[in-house]
């Protein structure tokens, strides 16, 4: 598939690709605090500011809590806000994540996914963003630096859509993607600027009964996020759920429009099936590990094994219908989790995929593989082992272990 515009190929690591996308997306404010493995994103961006390549206001804050607060406040006035963080930084933002989504501020944040302490570990896994899955943010997990670039640009359009108005996280695996140099095709500046456009505001009725744009404006004063007691709080949360439902179609639509421009597609923007049409044995996974799984699927297909992969690009909102459609005819499914939900019998992705399949009359076997915590490498041999386990389950018609730990020393 060929795009509509001429593209340049740059050698960028994942973090640089994210910074480059933010640079082109006409961002009004970046407020950030450095943390490995995200630091390169804001370092590069601060260079763009210092060189006069962008007109963005760059705010160095004293903590991640403040960084997100500054982004939220700017976003509420109608500005386009971007930040980046990881691990403990995201954890420190926890309170403000809910305030941002509750205020319906479409802040875009890149997360270079990293493990949480203790013990201290700077390497990649999904513990940080999975711990924030219920914070009301859209979550997109990318497979490579190219997709990191493409997804940040798309994220602004998705988050700012008046039918959505939700903040969005673009997650890229720490080090595996954040620090690895790849060839990244970049669109011309003007094409990105035109694609992201300017923010559109829905009209709301203010306290004087006047229709005004939904943003903080001294000419048309409104109050955002004040107290809502038991008689109204629930209704505002229901609105956020509706916005997430709307996001499902907006993500697909923005992805399609971007594909016309760039020539690049990631499934339908929500899920990327790989050899799933006639698959009997499938894995579901998020992030960079999908690249390794695809290579293993190719090997297995060459050997005659009907293996497939369903890569979940969008985890919030959860594309339930697509998951059911892709997995309904599969015999056995291995859901891969790069984080743990202690005491819950499996990881978060496992719970949700298994839950999505519950209403099927004839359900596949669904088992869980927790892998790659704290940056542990997951090899093609280990993934092959997962597909062998799935074949064994079908052969013996029994599941030996529901939750498995890949490469863990017993």
């Amino acid at each position, binding site marked *: 598939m060929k795009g509509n515009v001429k593209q340049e190929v740059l050698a960028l690591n994942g973090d640089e690709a994210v910074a480059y996308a933010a640079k082109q997306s006409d961002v009004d404010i970046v407020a950030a605090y450095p943390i490995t493995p995200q630091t390169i994103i804001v370092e590069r961006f601060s260079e763009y500011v210092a060189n006069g390549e962008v007109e963005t206001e760059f705010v160095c804050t004293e903590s991640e809590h403040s960084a997100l607060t500054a982004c939220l406040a700017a976003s509420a006035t109608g500005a386009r806000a971007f930040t980046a963080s990881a691990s403990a930084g995201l954890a420190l933002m926890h309170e403000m994540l809910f305030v941002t989504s509750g205020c319906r501020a479409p802040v875009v944040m890149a997360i270079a996914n990293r493990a949480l302490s203790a013990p201290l570990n700077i390497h990649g896994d999904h513990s940080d963003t999975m711990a924030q899955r219920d914070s009301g943010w859209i979550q997109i997990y990318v497979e490579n630096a190219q997709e990191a670039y493409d997804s940040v640009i798309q994220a602004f359009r998705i988050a700012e859509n008046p039918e959505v108005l939700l903040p969005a996280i673009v997650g890229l695996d720490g080090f595996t993607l954040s620090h690895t140099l790849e060839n990244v095709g970049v669109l011309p500046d003007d094409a990105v600027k035109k694609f992201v456009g300017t923010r559109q505001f829905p009209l709301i009725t*203010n306290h004087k009964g006047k229709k005004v744009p939904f943003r903080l404006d001294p000419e048309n004063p409104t109050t955002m996020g004040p107290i809502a007691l038991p008689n109204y709080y629930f209704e505002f949360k229901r609105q956020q759920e509706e916005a997430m439902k709307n996001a499902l179609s907006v993500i697909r639509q923005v992805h399609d429009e971007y594909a016309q421009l760039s020539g690049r597609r990631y499934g339908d923007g929500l899920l990327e099936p790989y050899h799933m049409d006639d698959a009997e044995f499938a894995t579901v996974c998020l992030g960079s590990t999908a690249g390794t799984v695809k290579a293993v699927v190719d090997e297995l297909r060459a050997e005659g094994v009907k293996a497939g992969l369903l890569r979940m690009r969008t985890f919030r909102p959860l594309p339930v219908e697509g998951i059911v459609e892709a997995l309904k005819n599969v015999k056995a499914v291995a859901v891969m989790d790069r984080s743990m939900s202690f005491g819950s019998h499996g990881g978060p992705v496992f719970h949700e995929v298994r839950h999505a399949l519950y209403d099927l009359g004839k359900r596949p076997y669904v088992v869980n593989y927790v892998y790659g915590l704290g940056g542990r490498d997951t090899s093609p041999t280990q993934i092959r082992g997962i597909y062998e386990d799935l074949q064994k389950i079908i052969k013996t018609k029994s599941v030996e272990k529901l939750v498995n730990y890949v490469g863990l020393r017993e």
Partner: protein
Amino acid sequence: MTAKEKSWKEIAPAGVCWKSSTEFLTGDWKTYMPVRDPEKCTRCLLCVIFCPDGAIHWKPEKEDIEFDFNFCKGCGICANECPTKAIEMKLG
């Protein structure tokens, strides 16, 4: 909750207020209400200054104070501050 309260489809996002704060009558939060003895009261107006809700007003035409029970939350600060103990908090 009453039937006239709005559904989630009828309200603006993010808790944006559709009424001015002066229309939210918060006086019904109170358990105790201030009762003043006009004989003991010297009209020093300390209660007007101390009231955290601005719910005690000086009425020049009456040359007297007036409690606005639409906003008085019955905190009792006026009674506590009154130098002549002219205000008593009573179960309202």
